[in-house]
């Protein structure tokens, strides 16, 4: 089966059936949980300090549940209404928004103390229409510039995604840097085709006092 982001836009691909399937699949759940914990580790927030986080592509709330458990308050955005409906059913605590991240954010400067995103960025690499504003570089540019301004200085954004080539990593990283972010790519299990995970770790203003 080809990669889901090549089959249809996310709000179409994750219709009611796929949204439930994705959420109930225990292997997906486990992978999503592991990656959320790893993203939180890379986020490197000061311990025992409350924080307000953004979950980019929060889907059905699998990561949000972990943010709840860890005592973080959060807001989540997703483009798939079916996934958000499942999140409502699961009674996650965060505020949910139906939002296309490629259209950019309207959050005021300094809104969030950190942001995470699990398996979402690759969806921005596919043009959805022939309209010029929907080309991947346009969408990535709007996403990163408005995200950068919504983040507190200093803070971090950790985005796990599935690039299909080094060119894609290059494109994403260069647009993020142009938007003002520092940081770079962290690859877990680089030699395992199955377990390999790519994290784009972005820093705002040095990324915080808790440097590793």
């Amino acid at each position: 089966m080809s990669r889901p982001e090549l089959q249809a836009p996310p709000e179409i691909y994750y219709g009611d059936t796929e949204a439930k399937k994705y959420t109930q699949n225990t292997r997906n759940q486990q992978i999503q949980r592991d990656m959320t914990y790893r993203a939180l580790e890379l986020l490197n927030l000061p311990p025992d300090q409350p924080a307000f986080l953004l979950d980019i592509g929060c889907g059905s709330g699998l990561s949000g549940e972990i943010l709840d458990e860890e005592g973080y308050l959060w807001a989540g955005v997703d483009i798939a209404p079916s996934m958000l409906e499942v999140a409502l059913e699961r009674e996650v605590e965060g505020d949910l928004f139906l939002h296309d991240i490629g259209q950019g954010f309207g959050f005021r400067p300094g809104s969030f103390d950190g942001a995470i995103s699990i398996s979402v960025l690759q969806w921005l690499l596919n043009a959805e229409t022939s309209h010029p504003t929907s080309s991947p570089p346009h969408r990535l540019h709007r996403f990163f510039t408005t995200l950068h301004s919504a983040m507190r200085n200093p803070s971090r954004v950790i985005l796990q995604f599935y690039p299909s080539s080094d060119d894609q990593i290059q494109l994403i990283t260069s647009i993020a840097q142009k938007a003002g972010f520092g940081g770079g790519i962290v690859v877990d299990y680089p030699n395992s085709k199955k377990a390999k995970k790519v994290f784009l770790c972005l820093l705002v203003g040095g990324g915080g006092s808790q440097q590793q």
Partner: protein
Amino acid sequence: MVRLITHNLLACHAKDCNTNNFPLEFKDIQLEIREAEFNSDFLKGFMPKLEWKALVDTARQLGDTSLPLEQPEMVDDGFLKSLHHVLLEIHVEEGSMTCPNCKHVYPILNGIPNMLLAEHEIG
């Protein structure tokens, strides 16, 4: 779920809508009150992020008059309890939010605001 904590952070993101685009104005709303866990450290840490006038005005529109017009310099427990309730326990379940500048209407269905823009509104 949309609560005043996120409403207070949210400006309109339509194309060329950069001034007078905050706060979004609630219309025809239905509220639900749900208890949330009280955390005074979180609230104190969050206070510098708030646009106080927008928060007080919006809370009053929603029928809550517990917050003082000026953000107090000294915070006591009574004040933090009121702030907690306004930010985290009042949920707007239905209705809409209108941008004061470009008049874009963001509908709220089932507690979820629809922030999607039309093609010509994308920056």
